[in-house]
């Protein structure tokens, strides 16, 4: 089981309480598709991904970005058992979506950078460390059911 200090819990709660899901979700997913273009392989049915502008204005991508970000809520509500919280989603990503689990890290890095851009100096090194620890636990849980 992952140990969380009070400071870490507070930092993570604070970050999520200030999060505009409809803004940050789309920005993170579209950024991932632009910075790491090979991730577009999973979005064949999402319409125009021809260039950065098209990706940033794509409504299907935006909607999916929000969905993915809300997926983190489960971990937030179950910080003491993130591993089991994502067991089903892990199976989904492995068996149905066939997503390379390395990609989870790419998206989580983009999310971190978008939040840093939004929060500026308020995203202190300590906040960054807590948030990245949280994301790495989620990423690990999502990759767990792959075989």
């Amino acid at each position, binding site marked *: 089981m992952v140990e969380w200090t009070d400071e870490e819990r507070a930092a993570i709660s604070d970050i999520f309480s200030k999060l505009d899901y409809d803004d940050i979700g789309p920005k993170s997913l*579209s*950024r991932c598709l*632009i*910075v*790491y*273009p*090979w991730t577009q392989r999973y979005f064949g049915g999402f319409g125009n991904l021809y260039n*950065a502008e098209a*990706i*940033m204005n794509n409504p299907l991508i935006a909607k999916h970005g929000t969905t993915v970000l809300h997926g983190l809520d489960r971990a937030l509500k179950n910080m003491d058992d993130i591993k089991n919280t994502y067991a089903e989603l892990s199976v989904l990503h492995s068996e149905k979506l066939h997503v390379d689990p390395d990609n989870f890290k790419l998206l989580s*890095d983009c999310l*971190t*950078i*978008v939040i*840093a*851009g*939004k*929060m*500026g*100096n308020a*995203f202190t*090194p*300590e906040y*960054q*460390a807590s948030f*990245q620890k949280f994301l790495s636990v989620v990423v690990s849980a999502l990759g767990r059911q792959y075989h």
Partner: protein
Amino acid sequence: PGAEKWLTNTFTQTCAVRPSRHSTFTHSTSATGYNMLTKHEKELIAKIWDKMIPVASDIGAECLLRMMTTFPGTKTYFAHLDIRPGSPHLRSHGKKIVLAIAECSKDISSMMVTLAPLQTLHAYKLRIDPCNFKLLCHCILVTLAAHMGDEFNPVAHAAMDKYLSAFAAVLAEKYR
């Protein structure tokens, strides 16, 4: 060109920045000035780093602090320094790193030449495991985002990530 770009991106993304098997690869991309970057991207990168030069100590210290706080294993390379927030060691060391990256950004095509002394330093003296370059690069991106806000848009981010990956790959070239 698409496949090469994909492979180069994947190569520089993985932790195994090991020169031996891939040195011809890195050589061909380095010698031709990184096919990964367009003229526009190179200008963007140079412009961003130019703005960082006057605040190199602040930016550099922040990058290092973010890295050591988020990835505590990286602290092992700094046992000889005072790495507390605000420490003069952190600022002077951070400044060196930022200035090297900024200097290189002025003429990205000449990266192999510009970085030759630093390649030797890292390979024979510092011997920092190249896995860690990725961690610092990530923290540099976070620092830039925190300071630049919306200006650090996806296009700038992509360009910068490619530049820093290439920089790290060149730095590791003499390791073996």
